[in-house]
């Protein structure tokens, strides 16, 4: 089953979809999980996710009642887990747009099998991310102060602060991702509408498919809009994590104040996001019987991306050390030595081994298509990338310029509960997504099949020779 697919007769490259599917069988395979009675495993997953989600509710409720003192945040580590978790979730949210937009612009047709799920994951991850700065502000009834809203106090936000840039970057990123995802969904929602057997389904899918009728005059605009959205989302995705890194890089703090942060954060974000896509897809493809659509070829390509971005992250770790030494700045030098050999050395070395060493296994071709290896490696990378943010936030803060104000950060039960709870939100949304929305972009996958390419028999025709796919 898990071997790389055969060669596509038209383009002479490995076929993207295993077997020899026709258009209808793609529809059937993708639509089936929404039309079956869901397997018992789905109910179990949803149940566990809802339990975790209620933990989030309880944690936030207790936080609002009692205040941020329930967390381990202290002086000097005022940015504890909430900011770590925020950056972690935003980072995960980056793979969706990378796979949907950047790979679309590069005409990487293999993205069609996984882009829908990756985009959904992006939106859910951004939802989780937005919670943390919102509840971290101390006075949670005042988050509207972050928005430029006219108010009776005559107060306005301070746009010279990178934290304000972040508010705009992340909320606009969430909005644009949602628009991109929804536009991509319209033709597939129409498929679900046309297959619907019950009135409720027909009405619900009907409303959201907007009356799509697959007209080429509509497709003509659709394709242009989709291309432009991809073109807009690409600089957006690069800017968002750059702006997140500005939260750190524009400060004066050794360990944060470095110019390498924007590219380093973007690479890390893509790295963590693809790891999360891999984790989810390894499970979903089996549970929902989509092994021929999401096949080892796709994992092979994703693990190459993991290898590249993981190695970029490793390069960033080493160049940070080099610059700390080369700058001759004693505070910076101390911060980095403290990072690797100080009280948080355990976190630093977890980070290095998960993020730099783990992806090196993907030099081996067999590892790139072995689902067990992929699953374990992607979990390690998820853990490592969480620790990266922990290391950046906590080790830089806990020992600053004055030894008299040094401290040590310990998370509390509520730190952990809030973080686990945010996974509950993410997984609940994901469970509902796989149940009610097509998790593979059917129209796009059909367009990559060999028989989708109309080859014109008449060489005198003014049409371009078609049949080229990436």
């Amino acid at each position, binding site marked *: 089953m898990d071997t790389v697919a055969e060669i596509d007769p038209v383009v002479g490259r490995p076929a993207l979809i295993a077997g020899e599917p026709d258009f209808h069988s793609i529809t059937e395979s993708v639509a089936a999980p929404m039309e079956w009675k869901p397997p018992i495993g789905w109910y179990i997953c949803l149940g566990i996710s809802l339990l975790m989600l209620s933990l989030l509710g309880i944690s936030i409720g207790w936080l609002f009642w009692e205040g941020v003192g329930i967390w381990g945040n202290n002086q000097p580590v005022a940015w504890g887990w909430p900011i770590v978790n925020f950056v972690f979730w935003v980072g995960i949210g980056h793979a969706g747009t990378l796979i949907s937009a950047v790979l679309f612009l590069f005409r990487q047709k293999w993205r069609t099998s996984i882009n829908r799920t990756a985009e959904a994951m992006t939106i859910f991850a951004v939802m989780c991310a937005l919670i943390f700065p919102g509840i971290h502000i101390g006075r949670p009834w005042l988050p509207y102060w972050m928005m430029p809203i006219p108010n009776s106090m005559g107060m306005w936000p301070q746009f010279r602060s990178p934290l304000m840039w972040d508010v705009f970057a992340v909320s*606009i990123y969430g909005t644009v991702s949602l628009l991109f995802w929804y536009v991509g969904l319209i033709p597939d929602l129409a498929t679900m509408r046309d297959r619907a057997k019950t009135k409720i389904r027909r009405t619900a899918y009907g409303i959201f498919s907007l*009356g799509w009728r697959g007209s080429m005059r509509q497709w003509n605009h659709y394709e242009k809009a989709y291309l432009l959205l991809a073109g807009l989302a690409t600089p957006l995705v690069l800017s968002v994590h750059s702006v997140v890194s500005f939260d750190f890089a524009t400060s004066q703090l050794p360990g944060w104040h470095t110019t390498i942060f924007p590219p380093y954060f973007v690479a890390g974000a893509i790295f963590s996001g693809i790891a999360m896509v891999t984790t989810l897809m390894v499970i979903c493809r089996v549970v929902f019987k989509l092994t021929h659509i999401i096949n080892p070829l796709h994992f092979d390509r994703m693990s190459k991306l993991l290898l590249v971005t993981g190695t970029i992250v490793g390069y960033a770790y080493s160049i940070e050390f080099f610059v700390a030494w080369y700058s001759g700045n004693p505070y910076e030098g101390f911060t980095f030595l403290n990072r690797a050999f100080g009280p948080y050395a355990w976190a630093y070395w977890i980070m290095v081994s998960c993020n730099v060493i783990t992806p090196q296994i993907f030099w081996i071709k067999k590892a790139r298509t072995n689902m067990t290896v992929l699953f374990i490696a992607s979990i390690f990378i998820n853990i490592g990338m969480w620790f990266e943010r922990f290391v950046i936030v906590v080790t830089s803060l806990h020992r600053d310029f004055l030894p008299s104000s040094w401290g040590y950060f310990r998370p509390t039960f509520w730190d952990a509960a809030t973080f686990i709870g945010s996974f509950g939100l993410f997984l609940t949304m994901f469970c509902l997504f796989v149940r009610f929305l097509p998790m593979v972009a059917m129209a796009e996958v059909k367009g990559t099949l060999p028989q989708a390419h*109309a080859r014109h028999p008449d060489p005198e025709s003014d049409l371009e020779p078609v049949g080229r796919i990436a």
Partner: protein
Amino acid sequence: MSLTQDTAADGLYGLLAEFSSPETLLQACEKVRDRGMSAWDAHTPFPIHGLEKAMGLKRSIIPLFVLVLGLGGAAIGMLMQWWIATKAYPLVISGKPLFSWPAFVPVAFECGVLGGALGAVFGFLGQARLPQHNHALFNSENFERVTDDGFFISVEAADPNFDREETEQWLLDLGATRVEAIAP
């Protein structure tokens, strides 16, 4: 015997011809285009490359919406920050001028992207005439396959070149596997 069945005695939206593959659809579309039909369309489960040329469609003007709204969004973003920083709530921060525009570039950029994205989405909805939940073609049960594996050409009765019997025969000659009359 006619292959079409009258579904409405008093009128006709048009004819719906089904084709078996992207190739046959593409060739038929060229013929329909060359005959100078105007009120017609092709319907496919996925965009077929080359079909827009075969149909003689113009380039979409959505890029224009994106350009205008994108630049507009960026301008509004910058203007908002200028107004807040110099008029509404002037604060001197580390001796910098009130309108320290380099610090305002990130937010202006994000606003520009938002404007462009809204331009793309609403431009698409406007150009594609969506949402439009009711359409005569939905009267055809067979048309449900357009979102699965059906390839269709619809010719409207409103087309000046339309003639019920003749157009039907012509579509069959173009390789249609089935032609159906659509009630309005």
